[in-house]
């Protein structure tokens, strides 16, 4: 049974169609890549799935439940988490605090207890912090816990977002260009991190421009072009598909769609 199900999604901005009739299914522990030329609507699709944009048509299902109109924060309770292409780090907070925010839905809330720093709150704070440190180590960011996130280099911030998203203990993790700006060594590390995450049963949905990485780790690949599905299949199938080749050559010919 599919964990995340996208059904016939369509959305437009100011009359310009950004996505039309996109459907896909993601299974547990699967690494599922979404690729396509710039402007194909990959990030827009992520924004629709994670509840930031409301689609004009179609629906999103998590565990078979229609969540299309759920507010953003409710989706994380159902096991959806994500990172952002253009970095949405909490720049004024320290690295470890960034990840601690990711634990939010597993923490006890109650403003009064927080105001008076009751012993239970202190204990929970320590636990949350320990978990966050663990995750920082997992993504290879040991030893920078107390640095202000705004002072960290780009590559570290990309990993920080992965650690933060993992802190929520998602069932489905959307990664938007996790290897952007990474050198070969760093990309190999990201590769390993993604495989480990999936090995734990988490479905990883990946938007990525590094085709070598995508082809290497993805179980299935979904190709978008100008907001529509071009093909979906294994790396082998996608690589040899004439439509895909045309789409990517077309990109070089300058037919790059500019919206979305």
């Amino acid at each position, binding site marked *: 049974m599919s964990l995340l199900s996208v059904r016939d999604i369509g959305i437009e*901005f100011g009359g310009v169609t950004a996505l039309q009739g996109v459907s896909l299914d993601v299974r547990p522990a699967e690494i599922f890549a979404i690729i396509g030329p710039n402007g194909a609507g990959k990030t827009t699709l992520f*924004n629709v799935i994670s509840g930031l944009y409301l689609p004009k048509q179609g629906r999103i299902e998590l565990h078979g439940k229609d969540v299309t109109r759920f507010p953003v924060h409710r989706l994380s309770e159902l096991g959806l988490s994500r990172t952002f292409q253009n970095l949405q780090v909490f720049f004024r907070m320290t690295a470890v605090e960034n990840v601690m925010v990711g634990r939010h839905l597993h923490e006890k809330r109650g403003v009064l207890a927080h105001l008076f720093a009751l012993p239970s709150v202190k204990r929970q704070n320590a636990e949350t912090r320990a978990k966050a440190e663990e995750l920082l180590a997992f993504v290879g960011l040991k030893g920078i816990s107390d640095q202000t996130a705004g002072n960290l280099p780009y590559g570290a911030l990309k990993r920080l977002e992965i650690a933060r998203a993992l802190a929520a203990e998602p069932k489905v993790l959307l990664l938007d260009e996790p290897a952007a700006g990474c050198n070969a060594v760093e990309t190999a590390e990201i590769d390993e991190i993604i495989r480990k995450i999936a090995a734990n049963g988490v479905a990883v949905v990946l938007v990525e421009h590094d085709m070598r990485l995508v082809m290497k780790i993805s179980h299935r690949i979904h190709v978008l072009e100008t907001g529509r599905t071009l093909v979906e299949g294994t790396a082998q199938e996608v690589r040899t598909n004439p439509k895909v080749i045309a789409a990517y050559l077309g990109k070089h010919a300058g037919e790059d769609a500019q919206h979305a």
Partner: protein
Amino acid sequence: MAQFLQYAFSGLTVGAVYALVALGFTLIYNASGVINFAQGEFVMLGGMVTVFATMAGVPLPLAALLAIAVAVLVGISLHLFAIEPAKGASAVTLIIITIGASILLRGLASVIFDKRFHALPAFVPGEPLRIGGASILPQSILVLAGAAIIVLLLWLFMSRTLMGKAMIATAANRMSARLVGINTVWIICASFAVSAAIGAVGGILVAPITLTNYDVGTLLALKGFSAAMLGGMGNPLGAIVGGLVVGLLEAFGAGYISSAYKDAIAFIVILLVLFVMPNGLFGKAGVERV
């Protein structure tokens, strides 16, 4: 009906001044991203300098020109000595700087002039005109006409001159404007100068009707800012409509409901409009990009 017209006339007169203040907010905001809370002080300077220059024997037209020149000078200084040195500071820091400037200007005005209320004689003497049973002062018509002329001149300036087009380009995208060779510092400076001039003209025109003193700028800035937000920040048309609407709401509120709560009606309407249209009447709804 006569009463309705009467309220409408007085609302439009005050609203025209609010519209000019709101327009000043908009010009500076568009060029620099700064919300200038010293905008009301330009109106104060317009009125006060004219009053004191005429008291010193300067003929009215010359006094008015002098007042505009003083306001422009103050506007340019505000930019050069307070805003430009704080370049790159956060929006709220810049707002506090303009609040500091407004305190400073009020302090200067109270020392150089005085703390009393002053009125100018009407520029166009004569009996109030009777329209539909309501009476309207010739000076009120002058205020409205003056505001209309300013708006028209501004529009011509923006759409016909290179400088105006550069200002529009800067408002749309400061970085790109700089890349195509527009000197954006100079443009921001110009926007402070033009805003100051617009404010001063408003202050001069309305001085015979509403009296002026060193302290009138505070409330005007408040109303002008509210009007600009009601219209949709950054939209000159919105600023003008917002100003007139706030003026009319005040006048009708005072006339039909309660003069004590006249400001309340304006603000309740502003709140209600924003609840329905969170970007003001003419503001663009932006898509959050992540």
